[in-house]
């Protein structure tokens, strides 16, 4: 008896239409993972750096020995400018400059100063792995110097023994020169400032998208669609009305969600960062662009949802159709969180750009770096995407497809065929 019910349930739920989206999304996720790369492998790789040793003393020798062993040196000379150029050319992570009197300062009980020039490639979480490895190298250098200090003389200041070097850091990122921050610090700052937007966008798209797709499913299930389509109203107005209505519902729902989420996130916030101190503050026009990017992405997402919604047979099948939208929003969110647009492989870059929800997720970080072309290009693309999707939706609304889709074939046409056979 139970077996019979299980068999029926399985047959009812495990259909091609429920299976295909899962398989497609699984393939997409696997491909994305493959393309992003492996964190473990990246961490094991030797960081590519350049060194300028202008000291030539005991402690710089220790530093050189550690760095030569644990990093891939692409420059080992005396010209900082030349070294920086070489590091940039060879796609390196940083140039370390050990200035004159480095060893002398340490012997004089003063921390030795190391100048670090970071070449930052991206602001994603995974982009800072290489710079994190270099941070590890500096620790190893400190450890080496500390060991020598302990072995040689016990009269050194204990604070110096524990931390024998200080750093003067400058980070170069997308044409900007940020003084006083390492690549990791800058990356963390950019991430913490822009992390909320991908989550807001994802929730907004999922909530509003589910509303519009469900609305189409309910219209079919409640058999109200036929009446709606015979009323004296343009089909484009029906499509736009559904999109705007769903956008409002989605915004309210996402807003409620975000109230709770922002409280949750605030518990992790350590201190307020003044972006203006580093020349990264956003102006009014930047916020306006973020708003426009968010709005066009929402419209693009909903217009895509309404096209998907035309495939809904009823409310239940509409729920399954929300899945591709959820997956696309999540793919966008994860990629833009973990990697910078500029540091992902070309294929993935095309995928990220093609998903309209990605653009507001990337907008804030891009604007901090004055990358207006990416943001404005994204807005233009999502606007064109929206217009095309609305045109496709209106075309479907004007065709027989909405009524003679699979559900109608099963009920209407099936009935016709059945009657014909009788």
């Amino acid at each position, binding site marked *: 008896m139970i077996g019979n019910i299980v068999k029926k349930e399985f047959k009812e739920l495990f259909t091609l239409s429920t299976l295909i989206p899962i398989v497609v999304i699984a393939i997409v996720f696997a491909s994305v993972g493959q393309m992003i790369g492996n964190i473990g492998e990246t961490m094991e790789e030797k960081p590519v750096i350049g060194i300028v040793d202008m000291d030539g003393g005991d402690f710089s020798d220790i530093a050189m020995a550690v760095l030569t062993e644990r990093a891939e040196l692409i420059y080992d000379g005396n010209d900082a400018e030349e070294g920086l150029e070489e590091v940039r050319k060879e796609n390196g992570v940083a140039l370390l400059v050990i200035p004159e009197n480095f060893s002398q300062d340490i012997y004089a009980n003063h921390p030795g100063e190391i100048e670090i020039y970071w070449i930052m490639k991206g602001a994603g979480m995974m982009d800072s792995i290489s710079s994190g490895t270099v941070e590890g190298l500096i620790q190893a250098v400190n450890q080496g110097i500390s060991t020598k200090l302990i072995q040689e003389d016990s009269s050194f200041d204990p604070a110096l023994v524990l931390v024998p070097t200080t750093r003067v850091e400058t980070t170069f990122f997308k044409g900007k020169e940020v003084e006083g921050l390492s690549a990791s610090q800058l990356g963390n700052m950019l991430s913490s400032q822009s992390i909320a937007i991908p989550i807001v966008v994802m929730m907004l798209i999922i909530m509003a998208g589910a509303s519009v797709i469900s609305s189409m499913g309910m219209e079919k299930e*409640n*058999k*109200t669609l*036929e*009446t709606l*389509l*015979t*009323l*004296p*109203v*343009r089909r484009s107005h029906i499509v736009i009305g559904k999109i705007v209505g769903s956008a409002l519902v989605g915004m309210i729902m996402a807003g409620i969600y975000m109230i709770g989420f922002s409280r949750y996130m605030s518990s992790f916030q350590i201190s307020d960062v003044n972006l203006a101190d580093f020349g990264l503050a956003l102006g009014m026009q930047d916020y306006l662009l973020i708003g426009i990017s968010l709005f066009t992405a929402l419209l693009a997402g909903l217009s895509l949802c309404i096209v998907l919604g035309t495939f809904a047979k009823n409310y239940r099948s509409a729920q399954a159709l929300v899945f591709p939208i959820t997956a696309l929003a999540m793919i966008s969110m994860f990629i833009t969180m973990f990697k910078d647009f500029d540091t992902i492989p070309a294929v993935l870059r095309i995928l990220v750009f093609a998903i309209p929800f990605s653009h507001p997720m990337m907008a804030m970080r891009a604007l901090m770096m004055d990358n207006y072309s990416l943001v404005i290009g994204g807005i233009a693309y999502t606007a064109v995407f929206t217009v095309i999707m609305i045109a496709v939706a209106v075309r479907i609304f004007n*065709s*027989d497809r909405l*009524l*003679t889709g699979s559900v109608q*074939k099963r009920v*209407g*046409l099936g*009935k*016709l*065929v*059945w*009657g*014909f056979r*009788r």
Partner: protein
Amino acid sequence: MKAVEVRELVKDYGNFRAINGISFEVNEGEIFGLIGPNGAGKTTALRVVATLLQITSGSVTVFGYELPKEAGEVRKIISYLPEEAGAYKNLTGKEYLNFIAKFFGEGEKSQNIVQRGLEIANLGERINDKVDTYSKGMTRRLLVGRALMVNPRLAILDEPTSGLDVLNAQEVRKIINSSVEAGTAVLLSSHNMLEVELLCHRIALINDGKIVASGTTAELKKEYDAGNIEEAFVKAIK
């Protein structure tokens, strides 16, 4: 002017021909019925006239407006009641009538339309309850009210009494008749042969996508020497 003129209408669903070259006319102030069994092509024909489906070949005009070219104009003067139609479940009956009325007029005009809908539906206080709580008969009366409250020049009614009990069915037929007296032309479909005799001025018998006979019920009964329309239909398709 003819309310509806259908000439050699063909409608294909992929490789399946649902309607195979049918022609008929509906006059102003007339109730015209498309009569046939399930799957004969009645709903498809009604959906074409209601601007919901594209025409494969042939022509359809509604009060002189040609389909599909002037579908927008046609939608202004028709009202379509699909078989097993529903209403928005989270709205009350009155809110639903209001929603529909606003497509046909603003302000006082819209209010007058709603008032007519309330009178036709005749649901009393229950009109203020959510549609979700209505019985099938109540929902159908609300939908008939919705379809006829706008005083359409042509009402297209697909199985208007489908699933209703005798009393509710009789009530709906009265509503349709009074609407016709007010000047509305009606194109309806039914497989209820008794209802057709009670309601329609003229009918067309449709089977396998083709019209096999048409005329008044009296003419058809005479032509096929039948005691009722059901018998005439059986003889016509043989």
